[in-house]
C-alpha cells in the first residue's frame, strides 16, 4: 500500500463517500445519483464493464473503497459522453469516471497493467520529454508494453497500416531518431514542475 493511500485511509476512516466528494474531481456529484440505470444501459461498452457507473456510485455510497479503486471498470470509459447527455440528474458521469481513475492512479492502487492506464502512462511520458507526442515511439511503446515477442506480433499485425501511413506521409520513420520537439523544452518542464507542486499541495 502506498503512503498516500495509507494516509487517505487514516484520514477518512470508513467514510469513502466523503473521501470521493473531497478528493475526486466532480466527486461531490456522486450522492446525486438516484439509481435509475440509464447510464449503465446507455453505455456502449456496458457489457464489458465489471461494474457499471450506476453500480460504482452505489458502491461508493456503500463504502466499498478497495473494490472501487482497484476495479478496472473506471478505466473502461471511452469518453463518449452518452451517459452525461442522458443522465436525468445531469451527473458529469464521464468526468467522475476519469476522476476516480486518476485518484486510484495517484494513490497507486489502480490495476497494474490495465491497458488504458498503461497507454496513458506511455502517452504522458512521451509528451513530457519533448513537449510533443512522438507518435512512432508512442506506438512502439504501446506494442512492446507486454514484452518483446508480443511486440513483434503487434508490429507484424500493424505493418500494413504503417506502410499505408508512410505512403500518405502521415508517419515519418526518421522520428525514431529523437523526433520533433517544441521550442522551449525547459519552459514546458518548468511549467509541469509547477503544476505538480500545486497538485502536491492539494494532496494529503
Amino acid at each position, binding site marked *: 500500500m502506498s503512503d498516500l493511500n495509507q494516509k487517505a485511509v487514516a484520514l477518512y476512516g470508513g467514510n469513502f463517500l466523503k473521501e470521493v466528494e473531497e478528493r475526486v474531481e466532480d466527486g461531490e456529484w456522486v450522492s446525486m445519483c438516484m439509481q435509475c440505470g440509464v447510464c449503465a*444501459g446507455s453505455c456502449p461498452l456496458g457489457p464489458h464493464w465489471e461494474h457499471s457507473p450506476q453500480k460504482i456510485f452505489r458502491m461508493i455510497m456503500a463504502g466499498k473503497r478497495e473494490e472501487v479503486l482497484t476495479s478496472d471498470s473506471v478505466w473502461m470509459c471511452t469518453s463518449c459522453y452518452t451517459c452525461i447527455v442522458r443522465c436525468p440528474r445531469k451527473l458529469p458521469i464521464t468526468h467522475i469516471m476519469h476522476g476516480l481513475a486518476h485518484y486510484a492512479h495517484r494513490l497507486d492502487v489502480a490495476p497494474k497493467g490495465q491497458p488504458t492506464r498503461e497507454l496513458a502512462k506511455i502517452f504522458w511520458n512521451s509528451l513530457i520529454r519533448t513537449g510533443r507526442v512522438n507518435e512512432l515511439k508512442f506506438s512502439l511503446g504501446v506494442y512492446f508494453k507486454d514484452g518483446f515477442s508480443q511486440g513483434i506480433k503487434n508490429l507484424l499485425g500493424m505493418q500494413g497500416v504503417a506502410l499505408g501511413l508512410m505512403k500518405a506521409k502521415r508517419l515519418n520513420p526518421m522520428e525514431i531518431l529523437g523526433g520533433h520537439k517544441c521550442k522551449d523544452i525547459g519552459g514546458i518542464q518548468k511549467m509541469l514542475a509547477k503544476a505538480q507542486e500545486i497538485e502536491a499541495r492539494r494532496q494529503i
Partner: protein
Amino acid sequence: MTASIATNQTILVVGGGISGMTAALEAAECGKQVILVERNATLGGRTALLYRYFPKMCHPTCGMEINLRRIKANRNVRVMTMAEVQEVKGSRGDYTVRLKLSPRYVNSNCTACGECAKAVDAEIDNPYEYNLSKTRAAYLPHNMAYPMQYVLDPSIIGTADAEKAKAACKYDAIDLAMQEETVEIRAGAIVWATGWKPYDAARIQPYGYDRFANVITSVEFERLANPHGPTGGKLLRPSDGKEAKNIAFIQCAGSRDENHLRHCSRICCMASLKQTHYVREAYGDDAKSTIYYIDIRVIDRLEDFYQQVKKDPTVNFIKSKVAKIAEEKDGNLVLHGVDTEGYHRYATTHDLVVLAIGMEPETNGIKLPDDILLDSSGFIEGASGGMFGAGAATSPLDVNRAAQSATAAALRAIQVVHKTSTVEGAR
C-alpha cells in the same frame, strides 16, 4: 355582447376542464357571477378523455355528468367555449380581459343529430383521440360534449364540404358567415385553471416515440382502452392492429429528468398501475404487464392500490429506467437497460410500449400576465392581486386533488369579489 353582464363582481374562470368547472360551480353556487371560458369546443378538458379514474376505477363520464347538470341548473355560470384569453389589464377587483372568440360555424339550433358529419367528406386528425384516429371535419368532440353541439373545422370553410354540411342541416344550425370576434369583459377575480398537457414524447429520443408505431403515451392508451375510443376499447397496437398482450409501461417518461421535465408528475405511477387493470380485464391470465420504474411514487391512501397490483401475477415490476428501445421487423419492441436490483443487463421484447408521460403546464410557451408567478417547471406558484391558480395548472395533480385545489381557488376568488361588492355597497 358579454360586456353587459360582466362587472367587477364577476369571477372569470379560465379553462373548462375538471378544475375550471369545479371552481366555476363552487363560486356560482355561492351566488357569485361566473364566466367560464374554454379554448376548445367543449368543456371537460383532458379528464373527459380518460377511460377510468383511479383508485375506484369509475368512469369520468359519471362525475362529468354531475358537473354538467350543475352547470345547466345554475343561472350564475355563463360558459363560453372556443374563447381564448388574449390580454388581462387592471388589478385586483377590477380586471378587463380581452377574449378571442373563434367561430364554431354552428349555432345553438344544433340538435347534435349528426347529419352534417354524414354529408362532409373531408377528414381531420381527431384531437379528442390524441390524433389516433380521423374524424369528419364536421364533428361532435365527444359523447359528453358541452355544449352538445357540432363544430366545423375551419379547414373546410369555403369548400364544397361546408356547403354540403349546411345543406344537410335541417335546423338551420350551420352559419358559415361566422367570424372571429374579440370581446372585452370585466372581472373582479380570475381563476387560472389552464391545466396540463402531456410532455412531447418525441423529445425523449432513445424511446423513439416518433419512429416506432408501437410506442405510445399513457394518454393514448386511455383512448385505446375506452369503448368509445378509436379501437372500440380493444387494446390493438397501432402498427398492425394486433392485440397487444405483452405490454411495457415506462415510468418517468419525461418526468424527474433535468433534460425534460424536472418535476415528478406525481400521477403517472398510479396511471400505469391503473392501466395494468385494463390489460388484465382484456385478457385475464394471458395478460402480461411490465412496469419499468425508478421508484413507485403512489401517495398516501393510494398505496393500497399499489399493493393490490403487486399481488397480481400478470404484472411484473422491473426497477430500472429503460435506457433505449429498438424496433424489430414485426413491430415488436426490445427494451434495453440494466436492472438496479442486481445490476442485470436485460433486452426484453414487448408488443406495445406505453410511456407514462409527464405532465407539463398547458401554458408553457404562452405569456401569462406578469402578476402570475411560475415555478421552475412553469406551474403557477402564486399570483398577486385577484388572480389564482387552480388544479393541474398549479402542480401535477390527479382529478381528486385538482378538484380540491379548484375549490380552494374558488373561495379565494369569492373573497375578492365579496370585498369589492361590500366596499361599493353594490350587493
